[in-house]
């Protein structure tokens, strides 16, 4: 083989290699849009547009999130709580639940006075306080967001890699804050939570930020991935301010029902299992095509979450300047997720720790240790 022939062979091999590399890079380009993510006007959302909200004067309309371990357990316990139904009926009201994919969606309908009560993470809760007068009297649970990655030991190894996240969610904050704190620059890919699982499985993203039950699902489906970073979260029960002012008794009944639900779920493994099966049903009803969760796993995750969250008190230290919620508020302003004019003191004043304390100190009056849940009934 002479020199020119050798050159030809080398060029050919280089071309083949370059072509293959280009193909691999192109095939790894992620789908950056999830079909459910593009709806800014949620009135035309394929799921929410089917919802019918009752008039607000006689109905407490609650927005819940089934894809949320422990939060969904509590929401489903509220839905089945006969004591709550009876207390509301005594004041001429009834309760109505609507399922949503993420907290910002609940806020969308609360700002339009179609929902009275929301159950969301701290970012949507803070956002709501800047949109409308809001009462935040209790937490739902405390847990952690997880950044899951392949081929990375620490979060700094994610430099330049693609990370999937749910925009506007608490996880979004957790991810951006983590990257800022550790001085890491990565490519952020906005995806809905259902799309994150698929993108991670297909190798379209290198890492993602998630929460239970998604974290466990991701780890079980991707054996080479592991958690490189965790960030604490707090979730809240919150009410529209005008609703809370006009229906104080309904607000207290709901707060008591939430405290009762925590005690009921944590008091017995069977209760935990039952509430988990309700939550799985709710997920299936909201997104019939989503991957099914295994009940034993859901129970396991709920137990873990319950261990971290056996009180619904708001930890006042989190509200101090420079602490958790204040940091999140500052982050939102920086990211222009809330108005630059929003005042922290105004938001701070909407967090009320006294109302829940008075309920917890009177367990007999609010029947916190009396349980009557409609275990045999099907969801309406």
């Amino acid at each position, binding site marked *: 083989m002479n020199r020119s022939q050798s050159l030809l062979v080398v060029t050919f091999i280089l071309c083949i290699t370059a072509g293959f590399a280009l193909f691999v890079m192109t095939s790894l380009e992620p789908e950056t849009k999830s079909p459910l993510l593009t709806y800014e006007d949620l009135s035309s959302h394929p799921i929410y547009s089917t919802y019918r909200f009752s008039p607000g004067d006689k109905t407490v309309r609650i927005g819940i999130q089934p894809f949320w371990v422990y939060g969904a357990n509590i929401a489903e316990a509220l839905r089945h709580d006969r004591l709550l139904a009876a207390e509301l009926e005594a004041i001429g009201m009834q309760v109505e639940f609507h399922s949503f994919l993420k907290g910002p969606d609940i806020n969308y309908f609360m700002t339009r006075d179609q929902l009275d009560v929301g159950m969301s993470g701290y970012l949507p809760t803070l956002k709501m306080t800047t949109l409308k007068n809001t009462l935040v009297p209790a*937490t739902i649970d*405390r847990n*952690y967001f997880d*950044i899951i990655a392949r*081929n990375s*030991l*620490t*979060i*700094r190894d994610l430099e330049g890699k693609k990370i999937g996240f749910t925009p506007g969610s608490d996880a979004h904050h957790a991810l951006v804050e*983590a990257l800022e*704190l*550790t001085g890491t620059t990565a490519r952020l890919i906005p995806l809905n939570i259902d799309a994150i699982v698929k993108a991670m499985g297909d190798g379209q993203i290198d890492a993602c930020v998630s929460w239970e039950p998604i974290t466990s699902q991701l780890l079980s489906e991707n054996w080479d991935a592991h*958690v*490189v*970073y*965790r*960030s*604490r979260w707090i979730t809240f029960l919150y009410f529209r301010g005008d609703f809370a002012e006009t229906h104080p008794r309904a607000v207290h009944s709901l707060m008591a029902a939430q405290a009762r639900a925590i005690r009921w779920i944590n008091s017995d493994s069977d209760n935990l299992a039952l509430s988990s099966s309700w939550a799985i049903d709710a997920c299936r009803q909201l997104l019939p095509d989503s991957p099914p969760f295994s009940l034993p796993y859901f129970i396991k995750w709920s137990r873990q979450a319950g261990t*971290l969250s*056996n*009180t619904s*008190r*708001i*930890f*006042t*230290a*989190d509200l101090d300047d420079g*602490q*958790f919620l204040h*940091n999140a508020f500052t982050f939102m302003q920086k990211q222009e997720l809330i108005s630059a004019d929003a005042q922290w003191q105004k938001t701070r004043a909407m967090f009320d*720790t*006294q109302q829940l*304390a008075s309920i*917890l*100190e009177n367990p007999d009056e609010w029947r916190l240790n009396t349980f009557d849940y409609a275990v045999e009934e099907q969801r309406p």
Partner: protein
Amino acid sequence: MSAPPANHPPEVLKGRYSLRSWLFMVFGGFLIVMFVTISLIRSFGIPWIGLNGSYQDIQAHTVEEFNLLADLKKEHLQLWLRERRSDLDLLAKNQDMVQAVGIINQAHRMGMELAELLPLAEYRLLESRLRATVSQYPSLTALHLIDPVSMMIVVSSSPKFLQRPPANEAKFVRFVHSTRPNGSWFVAGNEPDSSHMKLARRLKDPAGGTMPLAVLVSQVNIEEILLPMLHTGRGLGTTGEVILVNHNQQILTPLKHMLSAGKVAQVGDYRIEDLSATLASRGKEGLLFTDDYRGVPVLACFRHIDIDGDVGWGMIVKQDMAEIDALAWQRLRMSSLVGLAGLFFALVGSALFARYLANPIRSLTEAATRLSKGDFSQRVQIRTNYREVVELSTAFNSMTERLSNWDTALHHEIAIKTRQLTDELNFRKGVEEALKESEQTLTTIFDAANDGILVADAETLRLTRGNKAICEMLGYSEEELEGVSVNDIHPPEDLPHVIAVFEKQLRGELTLARDIPVQRKDGSHFLADISSSPLLLFGRPHLLGLFRDISEQKRAEAERDRLMMAIEQSGEAIIVTDAQGNIEYVNPMFETVSGYNRKEAMGQNPRILRSGHQDESFYREMWETLVCGLTWKGRIVNKRKDGSLYTEDTTISPVFDSTNKIINYMALKRDVTEHLLVAKEKANLEAQLRQVQKMDSIGQLAGGVAHDFNNMLGVILGYGEIILSELPPGAPLREDVMAIVDAGRRSAALTRQLLAFSRKQTMQPEILDLNAVVLDIESMLCRLMGEDIELEKQLKAGLFRVKADLSQIEQVIVNLVVNSRDAMPDGGKLIIATDNVTVNKAFARNHPGVQPGEHVLFSVTDTGHGMDEETASRVFEPFFTTKVLGKGTGLGLATVYGIVRQSDGTIWASSQPGMGTTFSIYLPKATEKASAKPVTDETPKPKQGVRGENILIVEDEKTLRDLLRVSLSKIGYTITEAADGNEAIRLIKEKGLKPDLVISDVIMPGISGSQLAQHIREIHPDTKVLYMSGYTGDTIAHHGVLDEDVHFIQKPFTLKQLAAKVREFFVADEPTAGS
């Protein structure tokens, strides 16, 4: 055998390396490279393909261990904290204790000193409980009960704390005033205790106060209890440590290392600023390679400790990277040493192997060297087991044998070749002569060519030769041409382009350069197609150019383009087919008209446009004309691609070639569909207008006849009645006279219908609801129709009101129903429908007489035998009937027509034979509201006798005037006559006549009835006037509607009718009974 003569000894080439050295270097070098590569990959992996080496594996393993350790310590700590909290819960829920606390606190607050409290049984109980608990749980160093009011330790497991305020008082106060049941905080080391952590539990006040009854505080020594617990498990080496920080990043446990300045960090005071502490205190968890508080690189694992939101600590588990790396490097060094030993043995082996392989080659090399010096007797003997080497030595020996033989044969071969060379030289001379002849032939062809041929020097661009044709094209003689530059035969402004084109041709990228501008000697230009190619002449590179003048061709192309443009932009569709009729071209207008685009039409036969409206003979005749070479013209109905039809005027002409053979057909088509539609619509409108005008003329005629005819009928009927009244019952003439009167009445009815048709009937319009009218006469209509015909009503709710004469409308309905009944001799269905419709301008334009706006549509539909178009067009003409003689007068529908038109409406008949008939009447919506009918007093007035009232009769028809005079005189009135209006005025003015009532004809010679009434009222305002007429014109009525306060009796009338009418005037003036 002899050696070949060697004038110059062959050059001896010496290699740089021996084979043995080369083999050793190659194998040895390869082994070293492989060893280094594998060692590096094994140690550090290939990061960009995700392959980890030992170093990364060790690092990953360490990270994994760290994560597990941190999780373990976190779990351990949380569990331990929960247990301690449970301990306090148990104590706090003990009822005896709560009771005792209440008593002691109360006593304490009342001012009792410690010495006084100590003897109390409750105090002793509390103290013993606290001591027992502390002794039971070694992790607790002390337990206190603190009064939240006095903020003093009231009871303690250790007496040294009694009557002291709780350490870190601010945190205690904050806890007491919170709502949390549990709390925790750290206290830096102070007397009387070292650094410790406090866990607090509220004792709820049974009385329900917001302040706790007391606070139970347990104390844990950090260094003795907490630190050992945190440092159990995996060893963290000499540099590793576990640090707890609070949410402000202040350390809660002592640091292992001193600070950079040699200082010792104070627990609860010193704040760690490094990244892992920041993240841990903010509730984050993870692992980082970062610098610690000393600035030393470490592997740090950080965790968040959170218990029910009360405890928010950060935990950092870290170890110096130097220590971790040292372990990794130690493993790598060991691994590398083993590898190096292997490499050494491999190199020794490769040296021995090279030597073993190279020895036979060396023997062969020595033999070959001797052979090269001419010693063909050389042979080699090698002892070896390798087949290839034995074969090589055998081949070498065979080669030397053959070389020896070839040497002999070579000398013989040289002699033969010398002879062959001489023959070859002779042959070449012959070839050169043939070449000269060939060149001469080429020169002849060169000069005779029609295309211009040029040869130019490629370096100087000077023309060296050109044929006659090029000389003629350029205007140079052959002598002038030589020396002319290529630049001179092209316009200077085009030279760059021309040169670029030539260069392309010479590179083989272009075979023919088209449209190249060429300049003649006189400066004029022409276009040429030029083909250039390189040519080697006399050892110098030349250019050969072939020129073809295309000026004429260009002119022809321009002409063709102009024609094509005209056809393309033509306003008429053009098709060109081949001789067999297959479409070869269509212009854009064809696409617009037919809907087929050019691509679809090409190759098709024009029969794709056939609509079926023309039969085969039509097309046959057309083709016969065309085949004969003649032009065919005609109108064709064709079908578009979408299936719709259109009409076009077509001219098809054959196209001939130079031999007069038809090669194409060209069709010129003009779409006249729209034009025909407009013409047809116009004709329809004209016909409708003519019909309306005809009906108006007939009406005018009928009205004129009716006037005189009614006068005569009045006389006939009047005298007939007088005769009848005179004849006794049973008189022979009575029946004859009755026949005359009956004929007169029927004639009167006829004239009324004629008047109705001619719209000259007087009418009294009112606001009507047509639905109500139909319902009122429904029973009568049913009787008229008989049992075989079913009546269906489709009456629109909320129907608009119309303004019309009720009796006339009833007549319209009855006439239409009767007409429909007659059309259904075997029974059927009759539908009466009403609806509200809005007539738009387009509808009004196509229906003469209809005004745009809101209308009521009244329709009568039957399922009868229907009508053909001609019958339908004449159906409203008076005396037109399709019925047998004597069955109809032919005035029923004419009457309907007249009444509808007089009511400002229109009527249309639509029918088809066998499909029934529909009469549609459009009446304008009434703008006025219906006025309430006055409630009339139905009580009959008492009959009064005639009292000789004075009546003036004004009538130009003498017979009628006489009849009136006789008749009214008989009743008892005093009658004065006048032949016309002027006479009547004269009687009143000159003879002082003062009539109570004037009965006057309306239309008379001289002044009319209305003018007479005006004159009389000027003289006698109270005198009443009764008009009588067979046809009023517009003198007392407008379009048949009587003026207000006008009294009128229609001629012909019976005497009874006249008497009753006259009586109405005088009865109205009589005083009623009782008034």
